[in-house]
Structures are given as structure tokens and as C-alpha cells.
């Protein structure tokens, strides 16, 4: 895996090549690829210490688990690159699942109708994603139009979306989302459970989203604008970039990814539970940060977040396999996240030094 280049890193690389000591350069490279290095070390560690980790069966399961955090992290990356944060993604996942659950099992009831109308699967998926997008739009408007700090705006929508999810069923679960042939709404379970070339569909969705998002971030004007807004918002504004629109779209991307996750989980569980996705936002942020994206914005990459999601997922599953107590699991996860940010600071300093010595 290659950490893709953005304008800032490209100049850093130029500084690298002309820069001084071999050791310093090596150190810099290792730092920049820390998510990948950490991933390799973890995989080696777990493969040696358990007999079941490095099996095709487990790697498939692992990828399926990683897909959830990865899809959230891919969307979150855009928001973080603009210098924002999105705390609402876990709640949006829960809400999207509940919307799908309601449409599948309860259908739409209009006044004057004898029987509820059951929309088809594609409609169900589409409506759920639109609901997700609307929350993102709300986030974006709060941040752009009303100048609410992203942390507060999305903290608010975290509660609003979770409350809405609970309101849909008054806290109950929507069971058996398989649909009924008579209602022409079967097939929802394929989303989370089908496999293509023996790889689960959610993993393909993750791969597809990673490719699209990566191209969007590094090869399109929109992507360059995202980096520019996060790097220096004022400069971006002066150079004619429509900062507000860039931010708005970033928040919508994030919540649409979150809604996708909610649909996948509801499909995997064959049930929609309003509490689904609680604290998912923290895993997503951790993956983004582990992947080398700066919380200050302007620096980072989609593929880095993907690597970060793999670190979180491998760590979680590996520690369970090893039978490490859940309390230690939390400590270790925390240490890894804090180390990642500490290393991030170290990297920034080192790059400054390399640039200066040049």
C-alpha cells in the first residue's frame, strides 16, 4: 500500500531527496508509513501467537469487520481534511438502519390506504442513504452558514439522529429484515451477507469506495479544494475556492458513508436496532488519525485512513483471539491511538528540520 501524495507531501519529498543523513530519511519514511508498519507488525505478532489468525477464513472475517470502520473512516477523511470533525456518523448509521428496518417490515402507510405500501429494496437503500445525506447537509449548514464549531454541530446531530432512530420504533428492534416474496421486498440480506469470489460484499463496497474516494481526493479539482480549505482556509477563499460548498459536500460524503455502514450492519444482523453504531465515530476518527491525516486539516489521505482502519480491526480481532482481557484491550487500543498522534507531531517536527537543513 502506498500513501498517496498530496501537494504538501510532494514538497516534503523534494526536501527528502536533497536532505541530509540516511538515518534521518529512513526514520522519516518509517514515520510516514506508520499505519502500514504497525499493521505488518500486528499481523506478524498475531500470526505467530495464534494458529488460527493467518487462515483464509479468518482473514475474510477480518476484512468484513474492517470494512465497517474503513467505510466510516473514508468518509470522515474528507471532513477532517477540511479541518472539521464528524461525531454524528455512529448515530447516522443507527438511523439509516432503522429507516430501512421500518420501510422493510412496516412499510409506508398513507391515510386512506387499506394496506401499507412496501417499497422495493433499491428504494429502501436509496431512501436510507438520502436520510443519511440530509443529516450531513444539516451538519454542513450548521458549520458553514451558522458558523457552529464542527465538534459542537456534529455533537448536536449525534443526539438528534440517535433520538430519531429511537423514536422510529420507540426503542424496539425491527426483526427479520429478510422481506417477504408477497411484498416484493426480499433481498436486503444480500447487502451484508452475499459474497463475490468468496469475498463478502461489504469488503467489495469498501474497496470500491476507497478507490472512488482516493481518486476524488487526489485527482479532481474538488479534492484539491478540500486540501486547500484545510491547509489555509483564508488563502483558499482568496484564491476563489467556494469554501462553504467544499465543506458542505465533505459532510454529506461522511454521513452517506455512515448510512451505508448502517445498512450493511442491519443486513448482517437481519435486524435493525436503534442503538447500533454507538461510539463508532471514535473508531473512525482513530482510524483517520492512525492513517496520518492531521486533525488540523490539509494533510493526509484516504488510503492512509484505510490502513488505519485495518490497524484498528486487526488489533481488535487479534486481541480477542489471543484471549486478552477486555480491560487490557481498551488500554492497548488507547496506547496505540495516543502513540499515533505523538508520532504525528514527531513527523511534523522532523519534516520541518529536514526542510530547514536543505
Amino acid at each position, binding site marked *: 500500500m502506498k500513501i498517496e501524495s498530496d501537494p504538501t507531501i510532494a514538497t516534503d519529498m523534494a526536501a527528502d531527496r536533497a536532505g541530509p543523513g540516511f538515518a534521518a*530519511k*529512513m526514520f522519516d*519514511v*518509517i514515520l510516514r*508509513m506508520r499505519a502500514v*508498519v504497525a499493521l*505488518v507488525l500486528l*499481523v*506478524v505478532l498475531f*500470526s*505467530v501467537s*495464534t*494458529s*488460527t489468525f*493467518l*487462515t483464509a*477464513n*479468518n482473514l475474510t*472475517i*477480518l476484512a*468484513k*469487520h474492517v470494512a*465497517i470502520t474503513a467505510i466510516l473512516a473514508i468518509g470522515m477523511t474528507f471532513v477532517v481534511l477540511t479541518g472539521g470533525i464528524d461525531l454524528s456518523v455512529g448515530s447516522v448509521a443507527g438511523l439509516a438502519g432503522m429507516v430501512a428496518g421500518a420501510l422493510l417490515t412496516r412499510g409506508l402507510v398513507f391515510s386512506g390506504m387499506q394496506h401499507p405500501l412496501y417499497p422495493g429494496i433499491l428504494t429502501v437503500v436509496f431512501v436510507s442513504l438520502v436520510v443519511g445525506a440530509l443529516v450531513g447537509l444539516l451538519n454542513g449548514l450548521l458549520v458553514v452558514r451558522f458558523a457552529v464549531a464542527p465538534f459542537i454541530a456534529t455533537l448536536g446531530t449525534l443526539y438528534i439522529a440517535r433520538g430519531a432512530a429511537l423514536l422510529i420504533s*420507540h*426503542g*424496539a*428492534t*425491527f*426483526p*427479520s429484515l429478510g422481506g417477504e416474496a408477497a411484498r416484493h421486498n426480499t433481498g436486503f440480506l444480500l447487502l451484508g451477507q452475499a459474497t463475490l469470489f468468496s469475498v463478502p460484499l461489504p469488503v467489495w463496497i469498501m474497496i470500491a469506495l476507497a478507490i472512488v474516494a482516493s481518486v476524488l481526493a487526489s485527482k479532481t479539482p474538488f479534492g484539491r479544494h478540500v486540501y486547500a480549505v484545510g491547509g489555509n482556509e483564508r488563502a483558499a477563499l482568496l484564491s476563489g475556492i467556494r469554501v462553504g460548498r467544499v465543506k458542505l459536500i465533505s459532510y454529506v460524503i461522511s454521513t452517506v458513508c455512515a448510512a451505508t455502514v448502517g445498512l450493511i*450492519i442491519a443486513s*448482517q*444482523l*437481519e*435486524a435493525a*436496532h436503534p*442503538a*447500533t*453504531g*454507538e461510539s463508532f465515530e471514535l473508531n473512525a476518527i482513530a482510524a483517520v488519525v492512525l492513517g496520518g491525516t492531521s486533525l488540523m486539516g490539509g494533510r493526509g489521505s484516504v488510503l492512509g485512513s484505510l490502513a488505519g482502519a485495518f490497524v484498528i480491526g486487526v488489533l*481488535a*480481532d487479534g486481541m*480477542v*483471539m489471543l*484471549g486478552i*482481557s*477486555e*480491560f487490557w484491550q481498551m488500554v492497548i487500543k488507547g496506547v496505540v491511538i495516543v502513540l499515533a498522534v505523538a508520532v504525528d507531531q514527531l513527523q511534523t517536527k522532523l519534516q520541518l528540520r529536514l526542510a530547514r537543513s536543505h
Partner: protein
Amino acid sequence: MRFRGIIALALCGFCGLLAGCHTNRANQKKLIEIIVPSQDNPFFRAEADAAAERARQLGYAVRVDSHGDDAYEQDNLIDVAIASNAAAIILDNAGADASISAVRRATRAGIACFLIDREIGASNIAKAQILADNDQGARLVAAEFARALDGRGDYAELLGKESDTNAQVRTKGFHAILDADKGMNLVSAQSANWSQSEAFQKTETILEAHATIRGIIAGNDTMAVGAVAAVKSAGLRGVTIVGFDGSPDALAAIKAGDLEATVLQPAVTIARLAVQEADQFLRTGTTGHAERQIIPCELVTAQNVDEFGVFEKKSD
């Protein structure tokens, strides 16, 4: 870029080396995976510890994990159990409906699933569902509550989380007894979501609004202990409080005379039974019992409180 290549090569070599050294140990112990809602709650801790202890005694490798009442987290843990070739899963599940697909997947993968404490909304998937008799327990403690109040007076009820089946079963059990008693007058029924702090606040409010209250019946001990604290801080005496579960806190409160009674859920007995049936099933292909097994609860009062330990009767 060259350095990246060198590092990558070195790491690949390292991996290969380690993979080569890796040996697959023969006659490994069979694995029993124990999954409970949390390990920082004394009830779930007790059932996890009891199951783990019995499984180790029977010669199994044991792993204990918790899903935090999150069905998706539970799904992941079941996946990992499948990947680890676990022989059996002892599960206190994360929701009657949301757990069905996970249990079915494990069963299809050839893992025998034994459900404890909470049931799922499907039969013939798990090998056993062993539950405490919440209805019988609720009737038992409600009868004791009415007896302590001489069958008359105003009382309040603290309900558990309304989405939880057990909360509904318990409140129905309470009312099957209390509503038949003409003298018992329910003045307030509030959900405190199983939580101690919420029960404290709700009880304070209820006591403020209804000065005539003589008794409080709570859907679990955590809420009952919260109610005890609220009654104390209001400086009231002679309010009779009962709970449900038999937690160590509640037993201590009964000994101190703050709590009238509770019913003990035999969590430890159920956990051990599940492991024994798992062992039986793995050796013979049958548990020798029906899938659903209901174990009765026991009333705990000041008279017999010394006979009970942490979610079990000491003689057991």
C-alpha cells in the same frame, strides 16, 4: 522510494521467517467461548467467572469476551469464535431479535451455542436456552412486598429499560400479585432504565410528589439500591423497598436493614449448567435436556440472607 522498498522487503522476509517457525500444536484443548454483556457488572461477571471456572475444570480452553449490549459487537465476537474453531459458545445475548442471525451462523459453522440468562426469539437453533424464571421471581418478591406492607398503602414502581423483555415480564409478575390486593395502591410507575443514578433521581422526585408512599418495588437491585439512597437522603423512615437479582449490594443492604427483600437469580447455577450441558453435548451429541430450561429464583430476606453468596446459594 528506494528505502520503502528495502523496508518492505525486510519485513516480508521477517514475516516469512516467522511463518516458517510457526508450528501447529497437536491435541490442542477444545475452546469454549463465553460471551456476556459486560465484565464490569457483578451479575455478568459472576456468570462469566462461573462458566469459565467450570469449563477449565472440564478440560477446555476458555475465552471470555463481552459485547456491551451491542448486537454488532456480538456479531463480530461470534465471527472470531468461528474463525478460532471454538467447540461451543456460552452466550448471554445482546437482544432477542438482533442475536438470531449470529447464533444461526455459529450453529451452521458447527459450533454448539448455549444461551444463558436471556432468550432469543427463535427455537431449534441454540442447543439450549437456560433462563431464570423472571415471572415466578417477580411474583415471589411482590408477595413478600405486600406482606411487609400488610397489604395496604401507597407504593411506587421503578421499571427497567422498557425495550427489555425482562423488564416487561417482571412488571407483569409484580402486578399479577399486587393488583389482586385491593389495599395496594400504585401512585407512580417510572422507568429508571436499570440505572442506580436514574433510580435515585426518579425516587427523589416521586417522594417529593407523593408524601404518602410506604413502599417502592424495583425491577432490579441496582435501581432498588438507588431508591434506598434517595429515601435515606430524604430522611424518611419506614419505606419498604424490594428489588430483583440478588446482587451483592442488595444482600448488604438487606443485612443493614435498608432493603426488605430481593429474589436471587441463579446466574452462577445457570452458567455452570450451560457448560456442563455443552460438555455433555460435545461428548455424546446430545444435552439430554429440552432446549428451554427455566430455573426458579429464590426469595432473599433478612432471615435467610446469610445463606447466599454472589448470585448463588452457598450450599450449591
